[in-house]
């Protein structure tokens, strides 16, 4: 069981070796990579940055939750920061388990929780030279939906299944 924030290329095969054990019948490796198109725009690269200390803490807590929820200690995750080219891996998750269904579910849980709550941000570089921070809470495509600040409640929960609320942009 291990979680790390790194600034060097990820090696998925190494993570798979790390989780392998004779009692495991199934292993999953999930790799997230930089796509050449996002939301219809040609992307040439991405800068990943983080609130590193908190990101490491949240990653560790996700791995621990996955371990207890899916009953395996064979879970490792690495998230990379820095400037990545198209096709490079930004995140690698390896899970091994005696049962394949649990291996799939645990890997899926880890990536969904990373996207939901780990304080990491990305700035895309576009082929026209522009660079923009990606905001997954904004609707994509031409019809950008702006919500009013009045929609935003005041009470982000901090329970165990807290969900970072979308930070609304004021009506532009």
């Amino acid at each position: 069981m291990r979680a790390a924030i790194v600034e060097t290329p990820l090696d998925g095969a190494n993570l798979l070796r790390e989780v392998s054990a004779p009692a495991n019948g199934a292993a999953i490796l999930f790799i997230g990579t930089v796509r050449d198109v996002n939301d219809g725009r040609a992307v040439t690269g991405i800068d990943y940055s983080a609130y590193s200390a908190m990101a490491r803490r949240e990653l560790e807590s996700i791995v621990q939750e996955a371990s207890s929820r899916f009953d395996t200690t064979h879970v490792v995750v690495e998230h990379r920061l820095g400037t990545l080219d198209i096709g490079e891996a930004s995140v690698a998750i390896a899970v091994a388990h005696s049962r394949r269904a649990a291996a799939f579910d645990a890997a899926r849980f880890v990536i969904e929780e990373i996207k939901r709550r780990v304080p990491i941000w990305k700035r895309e570089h576009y082929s026209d030279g522009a660079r923009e921070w990606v905001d997954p809470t904004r609707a994509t495509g031409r019809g950008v939906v702006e919500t009013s600040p009045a929609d935003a409640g005041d009470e982000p929960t901090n329970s165990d299944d807290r969900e970072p609320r979308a930070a609304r942009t004021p009506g532009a």
Partner: protein
Amino acid sequence: MNVTVLLFASYADALGRPEIELALPAGATVRDAVRHIGALPGADRVPPTPLVAVNQRYASLEQPLAQGDELALIPPVAGG
């Protein structure tokens, strides 16, 4: 009391810096700190009720702050 406010990504760009030191009266909450930040130049590009963390844990706007706390304003996360 003194509180360090950390800014990241688009919020750091908006306020032109990654970190702000705030001096707040005793008993101030996260919400009070966020109001102070909201009055700074550039803060119109930070939502009035952003996601926040205190000492590296997600927190409520009502959480009281203490001397030396590290308050982070967290833009919409985009990891993975």
